[in-house]
């Protein structure tokens, strides 16, 4: 049979079986990052920084040199690596507990300094790996193991919108929030990742892509239902779009 392959797993990820739960969007996001790094010929000279959370093992999945950082510290580790290896592509891969809670100082300051790194920020509004605790990004009313009555504004404040927050930081160059809940959005998300690594390649400064993601196991619903929940509940609060673009007006087609 005469065929052309139009889609196949690439070399941006290793052969290791991903350790994520069935239907977890981490897998989709890993795939996109791997594809972009491979297609842009950056994977062989990349240094990734894994964080702490469900994606702690991502140092086994991205097909490049990797650091495994302490909880929240990945942007600082990436800063160290990029400063001494400025010609390498340096990225971090962080969840919302890691980046928006314990790591808030590190992410703000890496953006503030305009570090020429790319941050892949996976926001699923919960602490997945440790069993489903409330995160700074958990929605009002959302029940988690440490907010069993639903998140209350008076106790825990309202959820933190990271892309909007970082947009106020002068050093941030490119910030976009995307989703991976259907093929159309997956395509858009991939373009956003391409843009972010472009920013790094062109030495234009700090880039971060925030992914609205699901956590079927800790949310307690099936993977497809989880994508619907994300669309119905997360996206209204965390709107998709570009929150900062200081690249000087190079538009995507």
């Amino acid at each position, binding site marked *: 049979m005469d065929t*052309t392959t139009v889609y196949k797993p690439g070399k941006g990820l290793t052969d290791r079986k*991903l350790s994520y739960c069935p239907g977890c969007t981490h*897998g*989709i996001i890993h795939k996109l990052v791997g594809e972009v790094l491979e297609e842009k010929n950056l994977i062989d000279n990349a240094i990734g920084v894994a964080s702490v959370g469900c994606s702690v093992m991502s140092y086994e999945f991205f097909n490049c040199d990797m650091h495994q950082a302490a909880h929240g510290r990945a942007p600082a580790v990436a800063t160290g690596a990029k400063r001494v290896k400025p010609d390498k592509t340096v990225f971090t891969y962080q969840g919302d507990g890691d980046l928006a809670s314990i790591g808030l100082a590190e992410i703000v300051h890496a953006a503030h300094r305009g570090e020429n790194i790319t941050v892949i920020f996976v926001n699923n509004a919960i602490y997945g790996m440790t069993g489903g605790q409330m995160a700074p990004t958990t929605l009002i009313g959302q029940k988690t193991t440490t907010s069993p009555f639903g998140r209350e504004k008076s106790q825990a404040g309202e959820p933190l919108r990271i892309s909007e927050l970082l947009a106020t930081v002068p050093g941030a160059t490119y910030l976009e929030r995307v989703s991976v809940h259907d093929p159309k959005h997956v395509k858009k998300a991939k373009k956003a990742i391409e843009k972010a690594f472009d920013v790094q390649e062109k030495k234009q400064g700090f880039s971060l892509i925030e992914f609205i993601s699901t956590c079927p196991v800790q949310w307690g619903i*099936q993977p497809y239902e989880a994508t619907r929940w994300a669309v119905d509940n997360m996206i209204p609060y965390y709107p998709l779009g570009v929150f900062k673009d200081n690249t000087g007006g190079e538009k995507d087609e």
Partner: protein
Amino acid sequence: MKAKGRIIIEQDKCKGCDLCTHYCPVNILELDTSTTNALGYTPLKVTDPDKCIACSFCAMMCPDGVITVERYNK
């Protein structure tokens, strides 16, 4: 109806998450409840290969890179 292409499923990598089945525009994907794969999950199967339009939606949504998509050349 002649298929535009086909998908190849790496059965023993599939986690039976049932995401892809919801995105197939021609509804030919289903979990094969008659079997269990090496990981212990209910893997994916194509119910009606002739209807495949090789859109790659299933492959794009798969978190585990299980699916390869091929288009038939004319």
